[in-house]
């Protein structure tokens, strides 16, 4: 019901139900801080705008029209009649993206009946009006990828969703990246493939068939390099094999859970492979904290995912900051939670950085994004203010 309501409603009943749901969602999740009557055209001023696409803009202004960025720059004339939201002492960054989340999908994302499952959509498991989405805004996350779990060689397609309260506009991409697995979880004695070599064979077979056009659209797109893929590979052997697959079929894939890559990192140097790592925490060891910096040094793009809301949403930015503390470059650290995930999910044209024509998804922070003490002040999704921090009464702020 919910997913079909995305389509233009044709029947009256559908409209009615949609309206009821919308009211309910608003009433339930955001009654306290409902977004202010959103103006269609407005400007946001900040001390520093970290665009993620180019150099930072000091004392910058962003012009927003109908949920999209119309213009941004240092000395920008704000057209007459436009409302100006002033954050002169604050920093504005692109909305963060958690590329592997379970937001809105408290139920199982696991479908393991067949080995190759190209038609399963993670979106079908998502409750679009779930309160997780409003909660993620508090940590400055404006979009998430929800991926099916790895239980088979191909476990279906992920989806990309916006956070915030407006569930009708939630879906960014229904047909997100294809999930692939080179992992012990994808083979079992109960069904084919039964072993690792069988799994590798299956991958080759499927990709070859799909390249010839004889498979579901998601696999055909993947094999022809038009769809993104996410590949679970844990062991060194699986990592090496994933590199072979990528080279042979020219896949655009992101490796997940690839902590073993440290041992084979030289083979991956400048291979164009993206690596997604679970965001490190305070408890992470030195090896895990320094891995992103090592990958950056070898020319491998690093992306973080936080597995929200299973883990803390605030852990996404914190993890990037901890990686930066352990040697990851500032630019790479920012990309790892904004543009990197957008690229891995195949939605970089719309979100992930601040540029003209892109969605007006951004976060206002009290300080630099990699200042550990920086707090999220406001979160904007599609030009709507979805979260606003309550002012702290007794707080005496330290002069920087």
């Amino acid at each position, binding site marked *: 019901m919910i997913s079909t309501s995305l389509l233009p409603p044709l029947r009256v009943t559908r409209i009615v139900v949609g309206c009821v749901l919308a009211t309910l969602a608003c009433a339930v999740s955001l009654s*306290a801080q409902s977004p202010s009557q959103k103006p269609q055209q407005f400007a946001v001023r900040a001390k520093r705008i970290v665009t993620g696409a180019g150099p930072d803009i000091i004392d910058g202004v962003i012009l927003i029209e109908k949920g999209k960025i119309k213009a941004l720059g240092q000395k920008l004339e704000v057209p007459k009649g436009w409302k100006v939201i002033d954050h002169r002492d604050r920093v504005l960054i692109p909305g963060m993206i958690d590329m592997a989340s379970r937001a809105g999908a*408290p139920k199982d994302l696991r479908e393991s009946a067949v080995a190759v499952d190209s038609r399963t959509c993670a979106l079908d498991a998502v409750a679009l009006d779930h*309160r*997780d989405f*409003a*909660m993620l805004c*508090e940590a400055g996350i404006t979009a998430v990828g929800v991926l099916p779990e790895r239980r088979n060689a191909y476990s279906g397609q992920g989806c990309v969703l916006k956070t915030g309260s407006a569930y009708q506009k939630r879906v960014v991409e229904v047909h997100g990246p294809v999930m692939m697995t080179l992992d012990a979880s994808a083979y079992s004695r109960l069904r084919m493939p039964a072993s690792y070599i069988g799994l590798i064979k299956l991958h080759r077979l499927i990709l070859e068939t799909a390249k010839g056009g004889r498979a579901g659209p998601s696999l055909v797109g993947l094999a022809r390099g038009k769809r993104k893929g996410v590949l679970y590979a844990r062991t060194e052997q699986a990592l090496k094999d994933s590199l072979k697959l990528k080279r042979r079929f020219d896949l655009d894939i992101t490796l997940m859970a690839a902590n073993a890559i440290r041992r084979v990192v030289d083979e991956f140097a400048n291979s164009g492979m993206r690596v997604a790592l679970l965001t490190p*925490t*305070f*408890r*992470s*060891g*030195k090896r895990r904290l320094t891995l992103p910096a090592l990958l950056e040094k070898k020319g491998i793009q690093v992306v973080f995912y936080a597995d*929200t*809301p*299973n*883990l*803390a*949403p*605030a*852990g996404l930015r*914190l993890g990037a*900051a*901890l990686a*930066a*503390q352990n040697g990851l470059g*500032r630019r790479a*650290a920012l990309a790892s939670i904004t543009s990197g995930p957008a690229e891995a999910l195949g939605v970089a044209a719309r979100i992930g950085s601040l540029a003209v024509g892109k969605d007006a998804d951004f976060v206002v922070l*009290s*300080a*630099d994004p*990699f*200042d*550990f*003490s*920086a*707090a999220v002040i406001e979160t904007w999704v599609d030009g709507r203010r979805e979260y606003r921090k*309550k002012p*702290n009464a*007794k*707080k*005496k*702020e*330290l*002069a*920087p």
Partner: protein
Amino acid sequence: MTARFAACPTLVLALALVLPSIAFAQLGTRESTVLEGATVWVDGAMVENAKLLFSGRRIQGVGAKIKLPDGVDVIDLKGKFVLPSFIDSSALIAGMQPARSRNPEHLVIDNVNLYHRDPFQDAIEGGVGYLYLSGAANSGVGARGLALKMPGMKVDKVADLVLKGSESMHVRLGTNSRGPIARLAEIKSFESYLKNLKTYREGWEKYREKLKKYEEELAEWAKKNKPKSKKSGGAKKSSGAKSKSKPKASPRPKSPSPVKKPKRSRSALGLAGLSWPGFGLGHDDDDDHEDHEDHDDGVEVCDLDGCTIPGQHEIHLHDDWVFESELDGQDHDHERDHLPEQVDPGFAAIFIDPPRLKPELSIIGDGTETHLRRPLLASERLANQKRFSTCPHCGASDPLAPQHIAHTNPWPVDEFDRVAAELEQRYFESYRLDMALADPKPGGPKKRGSKSSSKSSKSKKGAKPKKPKEPGFKPALEVASKALDGKLKVRIEVHRAEDILAVLDVLDRYPLDAVLEGVTEGHYVAEAIAKAELPVVLDAALATPIQEQSLGANRRLGRLPFPALPGSSRTLSPSRTQSDRGPGGLARRGIAHRENAARLVRAGVTVVISSLGAGSESLLARAASAASRGLSRAEALDAITRNAALVLGVGDQIGEFSPGRLASFTVFDGDPFLATSRVEKVYIDGKEIYGK
């Protein structure tokens, strides 16, 4: 500088005594050092372009405008940030085993490997100058923890690194049990532990009082009985007949010297370390001394423990050494159990086995028996240890071979026989007299140590006053009972709100110098903690607000979620920490809140942020991330410097910059809250221990 030194020559003296090499260097041209141009954390604010002047170990002055002495060594730190060394109030050095001890007598420091450099290095690179090593056990009472300063390049022993006065006892409650009832029991058992401590302490206090009284009575008694006989020994001998209840009055061992506080060796090692003056078998030192002086024969009493062969010395026998023997007692209770229940009142026997050199002598009679022991001989010790191979002197391979005994044995076997025989004789005499005077109860032999007889002897006028019985000495309780009067701090790790309230309740009855640790659900009961004026040590972990999962957990645990506090918003929804994944995690830790630290601070609690054993290098990041969740930056820094020092009991030494405190600080190359800033230099006690 010179002026200051002239003003306080004692300081110079102290420095010269403590650190001769440094003090010597100071007396030269370079007396003190000043950091210039840096942004310095002073009195809860970042002061730009400030100076920090220190000399030797101590800070001399700090601020934007301070007067510099002549010949000062200047370090230019333009654009850098200088902060006091951070203090991790609950750390576990990586690679160090957790204490796992349940005995507060144990000190966690014995677990530290100074040669394992990396963990220290990691902590230093995170700007941490002091680590408190936790002694927490899995649950209940643990070992004692203490704080160390970071070692520099060369350290001789761990003891040099210890922050004096930082030691505290650990208690962990409600973390290791499954259900609510078990958790309740854990807190109850903590309370009964405290009760035990109190009983133990009171037992000793009462004993000391009684002992004092006894000494007074004894002196009075001695005064009264003096004219009758010159020798106290003689007096005792003659009075031996009168004091009919003597053998029964003290069948159990007597206390050691009343003035001396008992040492551990006595109870733990039994006889091995006891002196045996003049065969007196560990008789009271005072009495012995008296005897020495009163011995008009001029016979010297020799100490056999020193392994001198008595030779012409006469072995002196105290008249009452059988009964005053303190030597064994509780340790031999089990031996007593082997004796037949019914012993013929007329029977007394001395078991001696000289050829096998059993160092034991038992006297049985009247259902009581007394063990006497002399110290083990070297040969016997070896035999006991079963490590004896070949004697280098006599070539014997058996430690009990006669020729070996002959040259190692300071104890002539004949002498022992003779003494035993004499003893037997005396025992029979006194026993018969006793029997004659006593009014035997019909129906069998008297029970040993019957209370009625001892009471009658006590009430009897003119009798020698009875020495009070010493309560057992227990090292663990002795250490832990210091906590009762605040001489030892107590760290109580407790997480859930109801547990916290229960602990506060216990602390109401037992006012300890307590610090709460963990306090995951402190946000629910912040006011109560503030009212109890207890500081808390948090790990300030992130919390995930997943209402459903937390509520599910609540259902599983069979408890209702706490009602939201007044004025709460969505951000106050129940949540859990990252570290609570896995079975039992949530049950143990409870429901975390991301603004836990902030709530506690707002309620007026002294909050300390620590790594709780998970990587000291990220301590500042932890505190700073708490600053992103409701704390101010100043409060966050206080939580790892000033408050942490206060909680460790070294608030007057470290934790902030002010004259007189130790010059321990960290130099950052940028804003310390930024992830991209790096630690450049670390100074501990005025010495650079790390530098890029």
